[in-house]
Structures are given as C-alpha cells and as structure tokens.
C-alpha cells in the first residue's frame, strides 16, 4: 500500500512545507508540484487496483475498491488543475492587496491539508476516521472562506462553521449508533468493529434494524448537511461565494462528492441490514427536494457565484436522488454524474473567477459582454453553462439521461418533476449567462491575464465522457455499480 501512503503523505507534507514558504512567489509552483505528485501517485494506485482488485491495507485501516478509487483520482486531478489556476489568480489577489502574506501562507498550507483530509476520508476503512477526516475538511476550509476578512466573508464562514458543525455532530452520533449496533452483534472485545469491510460482511441480517434506522437518519442529516441537501443547505451559497475562487472550485467540485461518498457507504450498510428501501426513499426524497428548490432559487440570484452554488446544490440533489433510486442504471448514472459535475463545476468556477476579476465585481448585472472583452472567458463560460445544463455532446447529458431512464423504469411519475427541474434550472442559468456573456461591455473593461488551461482540459474531458466512456473508466463504474446496488448493468 505504499502508493496509497504516497498519495496521502504528499499533500500533508506539502501543507507543512507551504505553511512556512507559502507567501513566496514560488509557493504557487510548489502547490502545483505537490498536486502533480499526488495525482501521479493516485493514478498509479488506480492502475494497481484496476489490475489487482480491491486492496486492503495491512492494518485494515485503508480500503481501496472500485467505488473510491476513481474518486481519489478525480480529487487529485481537480486539486491539480485548480492549483494551476490558483497560482496566477492568487498572485493577482496579492497585487490587489486583498490577501496579505500571512493569509497567503495559510491559504496554501490549508489547501493541501484540505486535499489530504479529503483523500483520507475517501480511502479510510474506519467509519470513525471517516468522520474525523470530514470534520478536518470543514476545519481546514473555514478559515479559507473568510480569507478576505470582509464582514460578509466572516459571516459566511461563521455560518459554515456552525451549520456544518451541527450537521457533523449529528453524523458523529449516527456513527456512534452504528458502533453500538455492531458491538452488540460482533462482541465488545474486538477492535475492528468500526471497519467498513467488517461491517459490510457481517451486516446482512445482523445489525439491529431499529438502531440502524436511527443511525441512518442521523447520518443522513449529518453528512447531508455537508452535501448541501435542502433544508440543510443554508451555508452552501454563502461559503462557496465568499471565499477565493479556487476554494469555491474545490468545495463545489470535491467536498460535496466526498460527503456524498460517505453517505453512500453508510447506505450500503443500511441496505444490507434493513432489507427495506427506507434509506433509498429518504435519499430520494431529500434529493428531489434539493433538486427542485435549488432550481427555483437559481433564478433569484444576483451574485454569480451564489447562482452556481445553487446549481451545485441542484446537481448534488440529483445525484442523491439517483443513489436513492438504487438499481444498476441509476447508480451508474449517479457515479458518472459525480465525475462530470465535479469537472464541469470546477471549470465553471475557474472561468467565473476570471470573469469577476475582469468585471471587478461578482454581481451579475454588472458583468457584461465577456465574449467581446476576452473571448476565452466568454466562450469558457458559455460552454461551461451549456455543459452543466445538460446539453447533448457533453457528459452531463448522458448521466442525466441515464437517471431519467432509471426513473422512468421504477417511478414513472417522478420523471415529471425531474424534467420540470431540468427546464427551470436551464432557464435560470441561461437567463443569467446570456446577459453576462453577450451584451454591451461596460466602458474601460480590459482583458485580464487568464490561465484557461484547466477549463479547457476539464471541458474536453467532459465532452469526451459524453461521446465515449473509455474502457477502464466504464469497468470501474460497473464494478462500483455492482458494489453499491448489488446488481450489474
């Protein structure tokens, strides 16, 4: 498991190094370098798993199977591309005077520590350590959301801290309840009771249904808060819009995925114990609620980052709905959607970051004529919105189509709110995007130095996934689908 150790230790050491050197101009390059190393290690580990099957670390603390391996690679990849974007962006911010040297050090070290905690959460086998890593992810980003130290940023960070703190505490209680049930079944003298592998193998018909139901409710509320499920989503638009843009990109693109991953892991345990579909129904309900409510809220927004945060909530709601639906088709679609949404949303946020630098404001009515002033940004935003709204050549269309097909198979009348939701979100996004990209640019608007490479790479990947899913990725998805839903495609 040394590849896994490399994947985990690299960002942690990077974080420690950047805590000292983070304010130097070289910090941005160190950030990129560390990201590159992490990505390389994760890719190597993924190839290892692909050829040899699920891997359990010697102490059984870490477990890499088909479900989390591609998430690990995705996290490392988006972390890398966002760090490429963040280097010139943060330099610009320093030149503007919005970030001091100390805060830049904090930013860089916390960025890597955040990546470390997400990778830890994804790869650990112990449910308790999963909780610790999720909480660590919250703690590392809290100070970053308030990086600019404006009253709004601090308010957003406080809200984030408190609401996610409450949610995470409920998740801890749910974990305690799972441990309680597991101990009753497995005996109190073992020290491996919280290991997911052990729980999964002994779960079928073993764990007490009343306790597991209660545990799932608490865990749904807890991790659901971090996923951004309505009605626990209030922190999300604030936190994602007030922090620096690289933070918005990784928070929207990665952290939501990791929280949902935790939820699905628990759902697998619950499904095996309960033999009913309670977990699925709950997830479907919350997912559908988030999907519709977020789509409606999308229209009212005046801040571009808030608007895209609501779009994140909407898509995470859709993915939750997909996982709740169960069955191979919906699970496959949900897994694919997690990937493409992560790529597209981070690309969008990168573009939006540049657009805001260009226009000097985050308010939608003051951003105009992007395509005239700097065509790269304008096109990037246009294509990004087209992608996230679910247009055919892009990958989001495929996953949404799969989810619709799955819904039509099992719950036909639910396709109507889904379609309406798609339409509403599409209308909202386009309404705002059209005014921002086209239209008359305000006088004196100059192009900014923009590094659009991450955006181009992400969008090309999403397009690629929409046209053709490569073999190894497809077999990963199939294996994960088999693992999660119990049936193969």
């Amino acid at each position: 498991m040394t590849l896994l150790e490399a994947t985990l230790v690299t960002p942690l050491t990077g974080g420690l190094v950047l805590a000292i050197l983070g304010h130097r101009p070289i910090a941005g390059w160190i950030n990129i370098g560390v990201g590159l190393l992490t990505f390389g290690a994760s890719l190597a580990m993924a190839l290892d798993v692909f050829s040899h099957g699920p891997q359990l670390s010697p102490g059984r603390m870490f477990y890499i199977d088909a479900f989390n391996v591609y998430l690990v690679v995705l996290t490392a990849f988006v972390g890398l591309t966002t760090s490429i974007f963040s280097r010139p962006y943060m330099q610009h911010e320093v030149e503007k005077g919005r970030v001091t040297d100390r805060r830049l050090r904090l930013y860089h070290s916390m960025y890597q520590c955040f990546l470390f905690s997400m990778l830890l959460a994804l790869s650990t086998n112990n449910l308790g350590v999963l909780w610790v890593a999720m909480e660590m992810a919250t703690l590392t980003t809290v100070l970053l959301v308030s990086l600019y130290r404006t009253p709004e940023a601090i308010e957003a960070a406080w809200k984030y801290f408190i609401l996610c703190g409450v949610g995470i505490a409920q998740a801890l209680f749910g974990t305690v309840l799972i441990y309680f049930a597991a101990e009753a079944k497995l005996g109190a003298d073992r020290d491996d009771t919280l290991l997911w592998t052990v729980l999964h193998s002994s779960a079928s018909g073993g764990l007490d249904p009343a306790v597991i139901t209660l545990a799932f409710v608490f865990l749904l509320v807890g991790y659901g808060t971090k996923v951004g499920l309505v009605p626990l989503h209030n922190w999300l638009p604030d936190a994602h819009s007030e922090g620096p843009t690289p933070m918005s990109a990784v928070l929207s693109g990665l952290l939501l995925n990791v929280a949902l991953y935790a939820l699905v892991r628990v759902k697998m345990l619950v499904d095996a114990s309960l033999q009913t579909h309670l977990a699925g129904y709950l997830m479907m309900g919350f997912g559908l609620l988030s999907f519709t409510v977020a789509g409606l809220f999308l229209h009212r927004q005046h801040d571009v980052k808030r608007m895209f945060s609501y779009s994140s909530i909407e898509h995470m709601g859709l993915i939750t709905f997909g996982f709740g639906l169960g069955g191979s088709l919906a699970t496959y679609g949900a897994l694919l959607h997690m990937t493409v949404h992560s790529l597209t949303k981070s690309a969008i946020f990168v573009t939006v970051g540049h657009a805001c630098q260009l226009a000097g404001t985050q308010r939608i009515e003051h951003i105009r004529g992007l395509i005239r002033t700097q065509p790269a940004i304008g096109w990037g935003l246009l294509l990004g919105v087209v992608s996230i709204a679910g247009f055919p050549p892009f990958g989001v269309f495929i996953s949404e189509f799969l989810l619709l097909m799955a819904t039509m198979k099992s719950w036909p009348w639910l396709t109507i709110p889904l379609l309406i939701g798609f339409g509403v979100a599409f209308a909202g996004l386009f309404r705002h995007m059209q005014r921002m990209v086209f239209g008359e640019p305000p006088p004196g608007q100059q192009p900014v130095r923009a590094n659009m490479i991450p955006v181009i790479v992400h969008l090309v990947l999403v397009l690629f996934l929409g046209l053709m899913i490569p073999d190894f990725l497809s077999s990963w998805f199939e294996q994960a689908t088999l693992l999660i839903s119990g049936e193969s495609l």
Partner: protein
Amino acid sequence: MEFAKLGLYNQAIILFAALALLTSFLMLAQARMLPLIFTFAWQGFLLTMVTVLVAMVTDHRDLYVSALLTFVLKVVVIPWLLYRLSVRLQMQYNAEQIAHPTLLLISGVVLVIFSYFVAKSIIHLSGLATRNIIAVSIAIELLGMLLMCVRKSAVAQVIGFMSMESGIFFAASVSAYGMPLIVELGVAFDILVASILFGVFFFHLRDSFGSLDVGQYNHLSEANGADAIDVRPVMASAHTPGDHA
C-alpha cells in the same frame, strides 16, 4: 429496573447523569457569560464522573481513557479557553437577552421526552443495568443543539456545540463502552482544533461586526435581499491598462 434494588454505584450513575441533564437546562436559561462557561465545565465534570463509574461497574478499562479525555477537554481546556477569550474580548460580564426563557425551557422538556422515546427503541441492545442513561445522552445532545439554535450570542452557540459533542461522547461511553481509541483521539483533536478556530473567529467577528450578537450577521440573508448591499469592492485598478505583470 427498580431503583431501590440497584447498587450504590448504579444509583450514583443515575444521579450524576440526571444532574448533567439539569446542567443542560441551566445552560439554556443562563444569560450571563461566566456562569454559562462554569455550568458547561460542571456538565463536563459530571459526565466524567458517570464515565468513571460506568468503567468501574462494567470493568471496561478503555472507558478510563475516555473519562480522562472528557475531563481534560471539557472541564479544563475548553472552559479555560472560553474564559480567557471572554476576558480578552471584555465580555465576561455580558448578559444577553433571551427572548422567551420559559418557552425555551418547556421546549427543552419536550426534547427530553422525545429523546426518551427515541432511546426506548434502541436500548435493548445495551448490557448496562442503567441503560436508560442513553436517553439522557440523547437529551443532552438535543439540548445542546437547541442552545445553538436559539441563542443570539456567538459564545453561547459555541458552548452549545461543545455541549452537543459532550452528549455524543457520553452516548458512545454508555452505549458502546467508548469508541476505538484512534477514533476518540481523532474526535478530541478535532474538537480542540475547532475550539481554537472558534477563538480566532470571535476576534474576526468582533472586529468586523462590532459585536458577537449573531442577530447582526445578516448581510448575506436573502430575506433582506442580498441585492440590497453591493458587497463587492469594485476592483478599480483592473481597469488601468498595463497593470498586469
């Protein structure tokens, strides 16, 4: 489970757990800063005592470690941090206005009844003679959440969060005889870091908003209309040509 037939240790367990529940209610009603912090410390102490007694009754050695962690964190470190913070922020004599204290207390009672019903369905798995304490632990957690939701002072919200976590730790101790050591240490570490971050936040909040009254933090509220204030500083220098190095 007839009370009179329990041994002295078990009776003491029940007594201390009930007193810890009382401290939760006292915190709900307490408007002044320093007594609130001390009541929280008392709650931590009572929960430590219960954990030690459960360890003695059931002979689980790991619970002594849990009790030590609870004591160090909840009785010593966090109250001391909060006390120092309120002194540095010069807030130690502040008292906030609680809107409807009696209503708050009655909601607390409702939550206790709710947690009793929740616990009834799950306690049959426990081997303790005093297994009803799980209901008290759920109640302490829910009361901590109530404290966080309704109080207007940021410090009270933090104490609610810590109290919530006390309740959960306590639930782990009495239902599952403590969690694996690595998990407990991880949780304790997280809580410690969280409390330090809270401290940092208090200063930021005070500097930005001028007060630690959560009701003032509504710049981003959509009810007020986030469009009411144009919050973005206009980056004027972006317009000057030749500014990009």
